[in-house]
């Protein structure tokens, strides 16, 4: 089966906006990230199982706001109390997760097909986010993640790096194109390279 990525109809490569007379290295880089395993893990309210002993790809869940636990292939973002979003390039990790989390205590859902992911890199990344999101991004550190809204679209921000800033934005697949248009519109004034 061939897969059609969430942004296949809108994401075109090239340089856009105010890119002329600017160094290519200074431009924002916007790309679509695809073929990741995305799993939502939620512990039921009435479950008292300790989750910090459960190992996923060498990582342990942390029930701390903003926290992302990560290694080279996998990132687990805190999405709410006892609620996490796991992102991994290891597609076969799902079986390991399903084996480790008992279905009487955890709801594990593969939502790989239902998210659009946009990655933005460059020094003006945070300026682009500030244009549509009410969150105070000065407080967001490297390897933090938040849920918020961008021009009214619910999205998740995962901050991968600082200097230069690099973030991944996750939105529901059906809102992906709208979010992409919002992000690229906001990026025009800085000039961006779509890759």
């Amino acid at each position, binding site marked *: 089966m061939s897969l059609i990525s969430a942004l296949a109809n809108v994401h075109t490569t090239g340089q856009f906006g105010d890119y002329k007379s600017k160094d290519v290295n200074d431009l924002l880089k916007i790309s679509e990230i695809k073929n990741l395993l995305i799993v939502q893990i939620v512990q039921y309210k009435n479950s008292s199982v300790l989750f910090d002993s459960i190992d996923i790809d060498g990582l342990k869940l942390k029930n701390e*706001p903003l926290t992302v636990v990560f290694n080279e292939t996998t990132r687990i973002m805190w*999405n*709410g*109390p006892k*609620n996490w979003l796991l992102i991994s390039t290891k597609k076969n990790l799902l079986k390991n997760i399903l084996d480790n989390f008992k279905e009487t205590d955890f709801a594990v859902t593969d939502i790989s097909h239902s998210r659009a992911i946009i990655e933005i890199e460059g020094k003006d990344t945070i300026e682009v986010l500030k244009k549509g999101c*009410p969150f105070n991004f000065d407080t967001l550190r490297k390897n933090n993640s938040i*849920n918020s809204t961008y021009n009214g679209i*619910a999205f998740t921000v995962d901050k991968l790096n600082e200097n230069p800033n690099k973030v991944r934005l996750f939105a529901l697949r059906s809102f992906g194109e709208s979010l992409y248009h919002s992000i690229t519109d906001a990026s025009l004034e800085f000039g961006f390279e779509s890759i």
Partner: protein
Amino acid sequence: MLYINCPHCGMRSQNEFSYGGDASVKRPELNKEVSDQEWDNFVYNRKSLRGKHLELWQHISGCRQWIKIERDTATHEIFRTFKADEEVA
């Protein structure tokens, strides 16, 4: 714009929240005879106070949790926020 200190996530914009009604309303006890008046009071009748008010909000674009907020309905000042299961003194 209001800023609400979510007890789970921290200080966030009101845009991320959704109002959920009066948090001081108590459901009549289960398995007890309930009069029409008591049920009316639970379902419909609200005091609509001017001043300090305890409200339910949901952090719908954040952690998706229900929380309680003590807010002044006249000035919009927010005094305290609580987790949904926290008792308010």
